[in-house]
């Protein structure tokens, strides 16, 4: 297809020049539409201290269609399923072409701070989160320690 749209180039540049605190997104060497993302677990959340790897892909239609984002690191979260898929409205029906990679990643970071068990993707996790929040947070911390802290 045609070369990389200017918008993607610009966004990539800006991500590099003014990075978002706690988020690192680097394009793949072989594919400028594929990003390796690392999000630090937000403070005061059960994910604090962990570093979570994600992959982000900009489809052909981007920015008219939403980017595809997936957790690569195992995470115990009601809006993330076993395969790492994320339930986030702006990645689906609420996508707007005016949103950017930066805003998407910020939203995911916010989702880590405020899990939303009422709109779950992983039903069992959401159930646990609703029934016994302290136990769920305990499990999430355990998973963070086990999977998100490898050096």
């Amino acid at each position: 297809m045609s070369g990389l749209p200017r918008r993607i180039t610009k966004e990539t540049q800006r991500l590099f020049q003014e990075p978002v605190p706690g988020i690192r997104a680097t394009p793949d060497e072989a594919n400028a539409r594929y990003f390796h993302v690392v999000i630090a677990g937000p403070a005061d959340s059960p994910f604090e201290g962990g570093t979570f790897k994600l992959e982000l892909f900009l489809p052909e239609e981007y920015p008219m269609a939403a980017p595809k984002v997936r957790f690569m690191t195992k995470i115990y979260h009601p809006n993330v399923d076993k395969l790492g898929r994320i339930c986030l409205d702006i990645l689906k029906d609420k996508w707007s072409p005016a949103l950017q990679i930066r805003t998407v990643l910020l939203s995911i970071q916010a989702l880590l701070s405020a899990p939303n068990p009422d709109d779950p993707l992983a039903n069992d996790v959401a159930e646990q989160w609703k029934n016994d929040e302290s136990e769920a947070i305990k499990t999430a911390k355990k998973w963070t320690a086990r999977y998100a802290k490898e050096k």
Partner: protein
Amino acid sequence: MSVDMNSQASDSNEEDFGVNSEEEEDEDDGGEEEDQVDIASYYEGVASDVEQQGADSFDPEEYLFTCLTYKESQRVLTDEVNTVAAALKVSPAVAKLILVHFHWHVSQILDRCKSNSSLLLSDALVQPSSACRSVTAPQSLQCGVCLQIVRRDALLALPCQHSFCKACWEQHCTVLVKDGMGVGVSCMAQDCSLQMPEDFVLPLLPGEELKDKYRRYLFRDYVESHFQLQLCPGADCPIVIKVQEPRARRVQCSRCSEVFCFKCRQMYHAPTDCATIRKWLTKCADDSETANYISAHTKDCPKCNICIEKNGGCNHMQCSKCKHDFCWMCLGDWKTHGSEYYECSRYKENPDIVNQSQQAQAREALKKYLFYFERWENHNKSLQLEAQTYQRIQEKIQERVMNNLGTWIDWQYLHNAAKLLAKCRYTLQYTYPYAYYMESGPRKKLFEYQQAQLEAEIENLSWKVERADSYERGVVGGEGELSASDRGDLENQMHIAEQRRRTLLKDFHDT
């Protein structure tokens, strides 16, 4: 055996006359004089006619609808669009969006317009609400989507003033229309759901092909959102069904003969309602019952919680994992079971054994489901078999007429009987999901009573239809005709079965 069944059947038949007459009287209290006349004539005449039956009393399934072609339905839509456009002083394209939003309730729109027209426009997402009108002229000449600096006149915006460059709008519309969207293409700005009218979208679409696609999707969305219209679900059928009052009723397409429920466009399903039949069909289709089976047929080891399926008759279980000995019945330690093992049912009262009662519940639920499913399936199979009988009857009538044994008219009753049988059994099949989801109580008792009555009469009818069918084989052999009384008997039975069906539908369908 078959003789026995026959005599039984005719016995219950006689009883039914009594019950039937009572019910008919109840109906009459409802106040239809025609009923009385018809019923009176029914009891006089053994030779009740098929034609007479057609005119019988009130039909709970009666529903008026018209089949419109593409052009006719376009005209219906355009008329309403023009009315609204004129009253609200908006363009037809905007009027369409408003109509879609309010499901084409024209009078409702006109009423709301009188009270507060700007609220109406913002509710329908065609005008920005006063709250978010903060965006005024474009602040910069950069398009917020492609991040390029463009000339001011290359920027386009809806009434919400969110400006983007023309190329981005084009791409936005192209992607969404290619994806199958008609109505519902909205502004590109974040958190702005202002709808794009079709006269804004159309010029942005490249190529006639895509424009045509867009027009097709729009038409589909207009019809789907219209409370009085429904597209025929038949494959590639362009017919639109129009009704006065939308209800879960049987409609049939005049072009492809597809029969469906007007409300949900699925298989017609009286007396069950749309939501229930969907639930039932999903339940039958998915494997949630597998899970149910597991919970009904297995138990967890009370010590290590591993899942155990019992594969022998002995209730003294030893867990293969943790070697714990326990009783399958009460899940208690086997040590407490001496020779008094059979008494362990009394442990059911014990609140400790919540587990066990859960198993029992799951088992009970599965039993209940299988009970209804079996009957549902069985009637489905009967329907298929009876369709074969119908075919056979058709062929035989054909043959008979060709051989100058009576005319078409003479054999119509048999044809009608087979058709009526299919109709009755179809309803009967759909009573089972209804009963499955019904809460127990007097109403369910009444339902089950009527269901049983209907079932009995249908089996009776089915038997008689098959018998008439086989009699005719005799006729070909050269031995006389089906006697007049047999024919009368069959027609009688048709009437009874249909009355049962109508009574059930009248009492339980969509009240």
